[in-house]
């Protein structure tokens, strides 16, 4: 995994594929953007692009690299080849879900069950650990290898140590019987480091058995981080805090029914935290989804970084904006990783909007402006 570096992903060459169109059409050059307004046209363009087949583009591109000349429109050819490879490389029929994706359905990266399909698909397409990571980010719109998850950990270890599918299968079967361990370290980075240290399958399985996390444990750290950020900024109710962060009164606008959700892409609006989410997290009630928790952490982190009262009356230089953006990027990544989430990813529309705002002269105002687009009267 020598080249599996985030910088490299960011520097992928631009082509005609969807991810680069997102970048160019919607948001301009990511860093050092002069553009500080997010217009309705931008949003519409983004929504149009959501229907583009990013996943199929990736599969077709990969098959071409493997010597099968095809394009996105060659659905049958692609499906047949994938089915064949499933049978040949893993000895299993291609799952229905994957077939649906190959027919054009958009894979939902937020469904936990889909991740095993992602990994297997990468495996049958003969990707190494670096290529798997890249494919996840470019075409599944997700980040790979959540080390706290046993499935992710098994694939990470086996891809890194180049183990055959039989080993992966056997490990996944064994791991499914593990019960959640208590009191083990919950630092994601620490876990990654320890897995990297292991070069022996039995030791790895032993480690996995001792460090198996259920979803509740996985997000314990995330909840603690969210509560810490809420407490740092909440001077009133969670609804008031959310209003300060988002620039609108969620309750008021929702109840008024004047929300035009189609104005912003679903990928942005879906699972956005509400005041109730904050309240539930604070009171230890069962959190909603992985995506909600992650988005809550990102927007709180964004607010924490950019609510800077001392900048009053100060005009920031372009360099200052840029420096702050990089700090925000790294700090949020560290928080996300620490909590078992995938880091910020510019190809993810939500992350991209946040980074776009962070890259403007007045990040919070820009963010408020975008949120206002949701509530343009129909």
């Amino acid at each position, binding site marked *: 995994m020598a080249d599996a570096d985030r910088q490299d992903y960011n520097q992928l060459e631009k082509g005609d594929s969807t991810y680069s169109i997102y970048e160019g059409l919607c948001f301009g050059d990511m860093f050092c953007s002069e553009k500080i307004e997010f217009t309705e046209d931008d949003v519409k363009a983004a929504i149009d692009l959501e229907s583009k087949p990013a996943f199929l583009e990736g599969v077709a591109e990969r098959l071409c690299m493997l010597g099968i000349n095809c394009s996105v429109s060659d659905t049958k050819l692609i499906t047949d080849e994938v089915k064949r490879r499933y049978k040949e490389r893993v000895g299993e029929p291609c799952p229905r879900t994957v077939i649906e994706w190959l027919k054009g359905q958009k894979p939902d990266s937020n469904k936990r069950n889909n991740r095993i399909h992602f990994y297997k698909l990468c495996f049958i397409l003969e990707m190494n650990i670096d290529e798997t990571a890249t494919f996840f980010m470019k075409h599944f719109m997700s980040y790979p290898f959540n080390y706290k998850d046993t499935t992710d950990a098994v694939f990470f270890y086996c891809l890194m140590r180049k183990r055959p599918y039989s080993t992966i299968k056997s490990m996944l079967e064994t791991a499914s019987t593990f019960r959640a361990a208590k009191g083990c370290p919950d630092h994601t980075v620490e876990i*990654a480091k320890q897995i990297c240290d292991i070069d022996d399958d039995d030791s790895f399985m032993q480690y996995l058995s001792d460090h198996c996390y259920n979803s509740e444990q996985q997000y314990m750290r995330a909840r603690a981080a969210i509560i810490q950020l809420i407490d740092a900024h909440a001077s009133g*109710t969670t609804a008031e805090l959310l209003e300060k962060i988002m620039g609108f009164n969620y309750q*008021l606008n929702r109840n008024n029914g004047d929300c035009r959700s189609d104005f912003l892409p679903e990928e942005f609006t879906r699972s956005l935290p509400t005041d109730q989410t904050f309240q539930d997290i604070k009171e230890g009630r069962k959190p909603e989804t992985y995506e909600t928790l992650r988005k809550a952490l990102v927007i709180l982190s964004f607010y924490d970084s950019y609510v800077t*009262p001392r900048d009053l*009356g100060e005009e920031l230089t372009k360099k*200052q904006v840029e420096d702050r953006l*990089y*700090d925000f990027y790294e*700090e949020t990544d560290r928080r996300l*990783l620490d909590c078992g989430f995938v880091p910020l990813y510019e190809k993810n529309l939500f992350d991209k909007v946040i980074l776009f705002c962070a890259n403007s002269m007045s990040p919070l105002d820009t963010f408020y402006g975008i949120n206002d687009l949701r509530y343009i009267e129909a």
Partner: protein
Amino acid sequence: MDDYLSREYVLSFPGQPEKYTIISVIGRGASTIAYSVRNELGAECILKEYYPHNLTIERTASGDLNCSEKDLARFEQGKNDFTFAGNTQREIRNNISLQNSTPPSRSVLKANNTLYLEVVSFTGMTLDRLCDESLITRIKLCLAVAEMVEQYHKSGYLCLDIKPDNIFVQTKPGGKEVVTDFVVYIDFDSVRKKKELSFGRSISFTELWSAPEQLNPYSYKKICAATDIYTLGELVFWSVFGRHSYDSEHRDYSEYPFDNVLNTETREALSRTVIQNALAELFHSTLRSSVRNRFQSVDELILLLKKLIDELNKKEYIVESAIRPKDFFVGRADELKQIDDAIHEHSIVFVSGIAGIGKSELVKQYICTHKKEYDNILYWTYNGNLDNTVASEQAVRVSGISRMVEETDLQYATRILAKIGDLTKNQNSLIVIDNLDCLVEDISPKEVWKQLQSLHGKILITTRVKETLYKTVSINALTNTDDLIQLFAKYCPFPDGELESVHGIIDSVESHTLLVELLAHHTTATHAAPSQTLKKMLNNGIGSLSGESVRVLKDGESSSDSVYAHVQKLFSMESISDEHAIFLAMLAFLPADGVLINKLAAFYLIENFESLNWLIRHGWVSSITGKDEILKIHPTIATVIAEYVRTNTALQECFFARSYEAIRIRKSKEISEAEHVALAEALALSTTDRYVIKSRSAAIFIEQYVGMYSKYGNADQKLAQIIFAVDALEATTPGNKYSAILENAYFHKANLLWTLREYEHSIQICEEHLIKSKESKDIYFTARWYMMLSRICHDYQPEDEVFSKQLKYYFAGVRYALKLAGDIDRKNPRFLSTHNLTENLDYGYLESGKQLFAKNLLISMAALMEGQSSTILYCSKETKTEISNLTKAIDLREKASKRDKDLRNTANSHKIILDKARIAFLSRKYYDAKELLQKLTVFSSEKELVSTPVAYRVHQFIAQIALRQEPPDYQEAILEFKTCLEIAEDLLSHNTYMVRLELGYTYVLNGELNNANYLNMNLWHETRLLAPEIRKTYYADASRNMGYLYYAQENNNVARNMLHRAIDEYKIAIAPSELVSFGKARTYMILAKCYFSPNCDQTELSLKNAMACFNNAKYFYENSVGLEHPEAIACLEQLKLFDAHPQL
């Protein structure tokens, strides 16, 4: 058994000569245990044992490590890493440039089924174990670490696990003092070359010390020199604040809690803007999440650390006051810009606006956003006059310069500004005067204003007055209602339904910031809804002030009359109790820049804080929290409270009675004498100058204050205050009725006039009032006037007959005093009957101390006799007279209290012993004198009275005996002088010049030239800046000491210059004549030695000069201590040598 090897365990290695005996466990890492051991050569060193804590391992009784089967593979893999680290260490050691910072290493050794590595064999400890080191030591160690890291970087290595546990600090022999210019890195598990980093290979790191890229497995490629630089920044942060940094402290705009540091010395150093800016720059360039935002090379960090150390090394620096803006600030972006523009174009800028509109807060916000543009921020809150403002203890100070209790505001302000001028001449300062309530032309004293203007920097002044001569930025009410709604909501969150009422409240007070804030506090504290508050306001007339506008401009001056009226009405609306009002009055009358809560509690002996907390909750008092909590009242509220005190007689009496109790005696060690005096002075000044309360209770308070504090500070100011009190008492005493209270005020007035050498005026008052007291048959005051007259006549000698006049007054005073003394013992006293005192003589509060009158008179008579004997020089030209006076003083003291004849726990008894010792000393019975003093010392320590003013004098006296006896014992004298200084420190007494000058002189006599140099040089610099009245002979003495020191260093030319300077200074010194003469005599003696020294050419001219100097010395000895003084005898002997000199 324990998982570490036990003490005395002997570790040997098959086939190897090495052998180690365990001394102790000194630390644990993730995969190692570090032991302090003794090696086979007997040297102490550190031995690391491979012991990974995340694996299941047990130690057997023999010391072997047994790893569980499941972890065995990882255990073995870890051993390889340990060996790798050992090899790395050896490789680095071979690299010449790192030899100093890398311990010599032996091979990795195998034993106990694990591995061992000797890492260091110096005396010292790891950095995490150091405690109580000063800030500068900690920063120096950080510099040493940075320099070591730089060496690693230059050799191609990254450290990647820098933390205090991995830094070994050497200690000097004795083990206490650390070596600051050299540290050793002792953990090589993570030391790597950049090219050795890869995704799959993990590197040990410690989360709290690591840069973000180390915590992100995808970011390993970003690991570089800046990764270590982040950790170095964290190390500096930890060294300064004693904790790790937070995420919010990793940004380019992050601010740091410099005034929240617990250690007083560190906090004082950190109060300096230049230090804060350097540290902020350091943190902004190291503690950044993004690699690209950090320094890219350790060189840059080293430069900054060196700059910081240079600043911290400065012995003299400005201690700035902490500026704490409110955490909530809205709007005013335009005004901030206007201030910034104005300050760039003009050297003096005024920020003007009506009371409570937010000027001060705006300026504080400006300071916080522009701090890095200045080297110093000198912030003063105007206290009614400029000298008092600058002299305020809570404002700007200079290290090493403290206010002396006898120093006036003007003297101290002038001295401190002169020093600030010296220290800031090449720097850019921002000078802020907050709340100046007069026009520039009315600023008093003018010389302080001129001094302030001469400082190098910009001046920013907030004022309610419209100043036309200077650039002014006008501040009006906030125009954006949303800002005010936010402000209201900050202190009183409200539901949407109440928005209209909040608008109503804001409109009612015409968007006045302070009023909006007070009303928000009121609403929250009374658990009311804004609509209820609005209703209450209208019922109380707030917002319906007959159409008056809150902002009225008249004659170029902003008037805030209706703002005060609004606040007054709000005051009534709040139903504030008398207890609350008294607390508000305390804060209104104490310094305008606020009072530390612990000082306030110590001053007023407050134990219950309920009322104060109520006032804070309701917004009347601001509590500013940093390391210490400061209580402050807004100037507008203060003005309203002062008016309330003026018009409410009962409250006024209660407040002044409580204030009298506060100033009467310092009851707590929480507050120093100087702080106590400063608070008392602020109360008095507020009464007479700031709020001008001319009532009887205020006058009595001022009279009591002047009586108790006449020896402190500015006599002119006190005279003005007592005149104020006399006028008020005259106005409130019916007809020509005799009043002892009024007489007492006149007595203080006469006393102050005497102090100011206005003798004739003083005598006139005494004689007039002596007649009055005789007519009224007031024996006590008759005696007092007589005694006062005798004292004045002692100093005032315009005619020959004065001495006899003094005696006449003196004996008359004694006669009346003895009458009183007899009266005390009577069953039915004639003169001291309560009826007589209160009904006929109006003794009031003076009556309570009547039993002490006679006793005090006798004691003051004794003091008068003692005053004839020189307490300063411990010798006299008229020994017999002195002994006679002291014998009389002892008689008087024993008469005052027969029980004090025996040594007991009273000042009178101790002074009897001191007088006896002085008699023995003057009779050259040094042994007897010392025995008496030692008896007193032993008694005091048994009673735990070690640090008292008497003890200070006793040790000073013993030191003088040590110097006088034959042969002199300089060592003992030095020890005794040092004890005096320790006592002075305990007593928080600042004027120790006499003792320090004597110590400086004795150091030279004893040949301790280094100590002499340090002390005398400091004294020379310090005394140079003292005002002439305070300077006395100190500066001349310091110059003489320096001259003597140069002479001792055989630098005769410089010595002579310095000694001539000393003589010039003696000529203009304002001090008793015998003290000046003695100083000159000593100086001429040394000067003579310079001309007559063996190492200088003894030309005829130099010999003549020397002889002239000896003759001068003889003359001045004769006029001060007499020719029987040992130094005078030495002088005479030298002169005899000259008589026989062949060249003369």
